[in-house]
């Protein structure tokens, strides 16, 4: 938990400034959601919900979205991730990848539903093709890298 606030600040800076050159077709990984996922593995569902809410508010403030859009999504995803953490947290990279992929896609689906409710229906196919699918893939790949890189280094160090 000590690293939550530094992690949030790092996410803000990376998402707003540093990830620009790494965007693929204008799509960047959702580091805020990754932070929520990772924190949720280590705290209670109540805390995960509140932290998700806080992370979402910052994401909304840095975006053109209505305040509360990502707060809603991130608090719900935080709750679910924490609630299911025993089943979710896995040592198998492929399983983790699919988990992150599914979680990010679900978050995208909730965002799409809220946007449809508040701002009118965005075109479904472009939303799936240009935002939800690539964002989920990219986020899952980056999440896998973040989680597995330290472990991989440890394994390599042991092998050496």
């Amino acid at each position, binding site marked *: 938990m000590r690293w939550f606030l530094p992690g949030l600040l790092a996410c803000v800076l990376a998402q*707003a400034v540093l990830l620009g050159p790494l965007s693929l077709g204008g799509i960047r990984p959702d580091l805020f959601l990754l932070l929520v996922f990772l924190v949720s593995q280590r705290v209670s569902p109540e805390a995960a919900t509140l932290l998700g809410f806080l992370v979402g508010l910052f994401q909304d403030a*840095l975006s*053109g979205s*209505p*305040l*509360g859009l990502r707060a809603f999504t991130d608090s719900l995803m935080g709750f679910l991730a924490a609630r299911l953490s025993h089943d979710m947290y896995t040592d198998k990279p492929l399983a983790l990848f699919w988990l992150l992929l599914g979680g990010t896609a679900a978050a995208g689906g909730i*965002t799409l539903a809220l946007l449809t409710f508040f701002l009118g229906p965005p075109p479904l196919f472009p939303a799936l093709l240009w935002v939800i699918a690539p964002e989920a893939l990219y986020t899952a790949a980056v999440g896998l890298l973040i989680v597995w890189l330290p472990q991989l280094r440890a394994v390599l160090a042991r092998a050496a």
Partner: protein
Amino acid sequence: MSAILRLLARYRRATILTATLVVSFLLMTLQVRHETAVVTFTRQALLFIVSPFIKVTAATVRGVSNTWRDYVDLRGLQEENTRLQRETAILKRRIDQLEEQALETQRLQALLAMRQASRAEFLTARVVGKDATNWFKTVLLDRGSLEGVRRNQPVVVPDGLVGRVVEVTPTSAKVQLLTDPVNAVGGLIQRTRVTGIVSGNLGAGARVRYLPLMADVVGGDQVVTSGMGGVFPKGIPIGRITAVERRSGALFQEATLQPAVDLNRLEEVLILTTLEANAGREVGTSLGAGTGFEAGNGRRP
């Protein structure tokens, strides 16, 4: 009372989840229906907290990348290239300006003589941050209300229109880009004077909607701001038509548009801080084309 508290404590988990979801939903509702002081204050406070860090990081990144580029590149060639690019941009701007002026002169020669010259004031700003989601297209600038930035001020670069200011803190401002899905700008096909609405979409580029079915629109046509709406000066280049779609049974035709400005590579922009009654036309022509912004679907947060 104590029974309710006991009940809430017992179902603490569900209570907290419900409360956060309801608060989020209320915030969205308040903001979408009308901009309330609570929502505006919260947004600005959050932005105010992080914007100094973003500015410092952006400045560091810029400094490091500039140092690296200067080290790697041949300095003389780079400077020459930059100078030539700037000259090309100025010449392009001048050509657009002359085209628009010539067309305007033909139609409004009598009125033109009566027009009083007026000036618009620009403020230069650096782009320090980008949108934190993939659903919207906004950028963060390093200038705020302390320097005279206000909501709805147009933002341009020498190549054309960038967007408009939608949120301001004392030291930073958020700009909604032309390609944001909830943005909409009154556009004018420069060749045929047909008007339409330019709006962003979730993919790349933008679309021109509500073009009359029989209107003469072809690929390559330049689109400029129409001046209707009173936010943008008339004639600012928006982009070029890349394809026209005429669906059978549709009341209007639509076109895809390639923005005149590469919105993914924005670094410095100009904010039009003063826009008097006639200043719009002056600004538009000096940028290569004049003002028209219809504030999206009216529901922009």
